[in-house]
């Protein structure tokens, strides 16, 4: 304890220098924590939206994940009702979202454009996605029967085809046998997913219409919603087993390409940024320590003459580094916490990410584990660098140190 007290007193010797060092360490720590918090918040948001789009788990025939289909629904799920009742028996399963993916042309009589259509179960699909699907015009699909099959079209697609709710369109697609099929439908609403490229081709219809279009009873894949997204990894194997032979179950993460690429990009950007900040902070601490050590050369000689071992001196300096770095890191953590809380209430919007049309709120996560790790990291690195810069001085010949002016 006496060594530690000595180290603390030593850091108070040149208050201005220590304060500057501490401030820089604090700002650096806060910057790292805020960047990490921002990245973490972004990852969470993307993970949630990815899981919402695909399902916490996605069940499909194994071939579906492995091979490209030659004809529509070649690797589709045959007996959906049976699979459905098996899966719903699982205690963690909340909702099942059957989907049929098919492509073809959509025509307004004058022109035809390519569509990427999804057949869905309107009730559960919109229950989950509803609040997040940005409806532009009209209303959602419903399971209620109507004379003409209903569809939702992407905003950009509606513009291309010059349609509004109530307008009629014709869908053209190959059936599972490879024959061409056509179906008259009515636009019920238009929506935006926030991804303009996707809105140009996207089209939703109900499962029944899709099956009629493709002349089949199959579905493409099944999104499984659990009571909690966190269960996905643990439950995957069990759900796969429940689904039975020939089925494969993936987690949302396997499907989340956007999430994965953003995460990879941010990890690199923020990793490099954090590395640079850490180096600057360490450099400042090393500089302050070596100045302080040189000023104390005679004292080092004195302490050595009195019988202090070089490693004991190094330990004092290491503690000084730890005190400086630790105090700086703690102040920085408090700073980051304050900024995070302010951001939570400030409601600042970030511009849309590349390839998106809507922004998202600027907010940063407060993750105690990351705070602890960063503070600990700063302390450890500051200690190491103080040790390194003090090693030589602690071993300087005593007479030389004593005669230092």
């Amino acid at each position, binding site marked *: 304890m*006496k060594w530690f007290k*000595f180290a603390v*007193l*030593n850091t*108070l*010797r040149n208050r201005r220098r220590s304060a500057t060092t501490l401030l820089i360490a604090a700002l650096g720590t806060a910057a790292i924590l805020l960047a990490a918090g921002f990245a973490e918040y972004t990852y969470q948001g993307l993970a949630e939206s990815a899981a919402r789009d695909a399902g916490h788990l996605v069940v499909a025939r194994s071939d579906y994940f492995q091979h490209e289909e030659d004809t529509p629904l070649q690797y589709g799920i045959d007996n959906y009702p049976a699979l459905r009742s098996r899966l719903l028996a699982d205690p963690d399963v909340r909702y099942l979202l059957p989907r049929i993916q098919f492509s073809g042309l959509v025509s307004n009589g004058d022109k035809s454009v390519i569509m990427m259509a999804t057949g869905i179960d309107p009730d559960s699909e919109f229950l989950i996605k509803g609040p997040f699907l940005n409806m532009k015009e009209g209303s959602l699909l419903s399971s209620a029967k109507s004379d003409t099959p209903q569809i939702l079209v992407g905003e950009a697609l509606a513009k291309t085809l010059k349609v509004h709710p109530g307008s009629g369109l014709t869908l053209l697609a190959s059936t599972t046998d490879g024959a061409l099929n056509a179906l008259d439908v009515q636009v019920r609403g238009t929506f935006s997913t926030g991804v303009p490229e996707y809105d140009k081709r996207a089209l939703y219809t109900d499962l029944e219409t899709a099956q009629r279009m493709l002349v089949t009873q199959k579905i493409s894949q099944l999104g499984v919603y659990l009571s909690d997204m966190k269960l996905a990894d643990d439950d995957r194997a069990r759900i796969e087993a429940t689904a039975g032979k020939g089925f494969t179950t993936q987690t949302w993460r396997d499907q989340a390409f956007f999430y994965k690429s953003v995460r990879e990009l941010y990890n690199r950007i923020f990793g490099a940024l954090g590395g640079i900040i850490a180096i600057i902070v360490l450099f400042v601490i090393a500089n302050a320590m070596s100045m302080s050590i040189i000023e104390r050369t*005679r*004292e080092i000689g*004195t*302490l*050595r*003459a*009195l*019988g*202090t*071992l*070089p490693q004991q001196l190094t330990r004092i300096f290491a503690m000084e580094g730890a005190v400086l770095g630790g105090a700086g890191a703690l102040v920085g953590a408090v700073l980051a916490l304050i900024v995070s809380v302010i951001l939570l209430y400030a409601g600042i919007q970030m511009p849309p990410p590349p390839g998106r049309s809507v922004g998202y709120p600027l907010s940063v996560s407060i993750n105690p584990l990351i705070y602890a790790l960063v503070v600990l990291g700063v302390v450890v690195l500051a200690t190491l660098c103080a040790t390194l810069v003090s090693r030589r001085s602690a071993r300087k*010949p*005593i*007479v030389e140190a*004593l005669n230092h002016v």
Partner: protein
Amino acid sequence: MSEHTPVISLQGMSKAYNMGEGRVQALSDASLALPPGEMLALTGPSGSGKSTLLNIAGLIDTPDTGRYLLDGEDVSQLDETCRTLLRRNAIGFIFQGFNLVPVMSVADNIDYPLFLAGINAGERKRRVAEMLEKVGLREQAQRRPDALSGGQRQRVAVARALVKWPRLVIADEPTANLDSHTADQVITLIRELCHAEGAACLVATHDDRLSTRCDRVLAMRDGYILPDAPFTHLAAPAVAA
């Protein structure tokens, strides 16, 4: 060890320094022995090798040649760690510039050698208090060194050197930064305490008035200890008038 074993015995100590082109022989074949409780003054002009000899005797420097017996044990070949531990336990230093630790209080400065030696807190506290009493600084115990006068600071340094009951005290120009009256007091204090503790003391000084207070004086010149030094073997211990 017997009553007559010298605390230190230096035999044939030599040390040379490289100075630019040439070599300076700082110490040439110097030998001396110090019995317990004796205070020996080394005098001589600047550059005569006093500090060099003191540094070697204090185990903070190494000679080129020569044998060093401390309490009868040959310490010439010890490694740095052993030398550090020997300094810690057996040697006290008093410097010309006081060399107190500025961030520590007077009491903590005196306590430091005991702390290093791993003595328990209660015992340390007792010995520090006793030492503060002896050097007359009880009132100043919690002050920082920079709040003290030069004479008071050197008394703290004396206390720090002697609190661990060393076998040997090394004092290189201990009074050079003090006025003559204060110098008198400090040298008397060193002498009394060394006598009381039975510690041998090596003092380097320019000051003839100071050297006459010591039990014995050796003069040095050009790295040699002069055999015919005028004050060698002073008969009676000279006590302050």
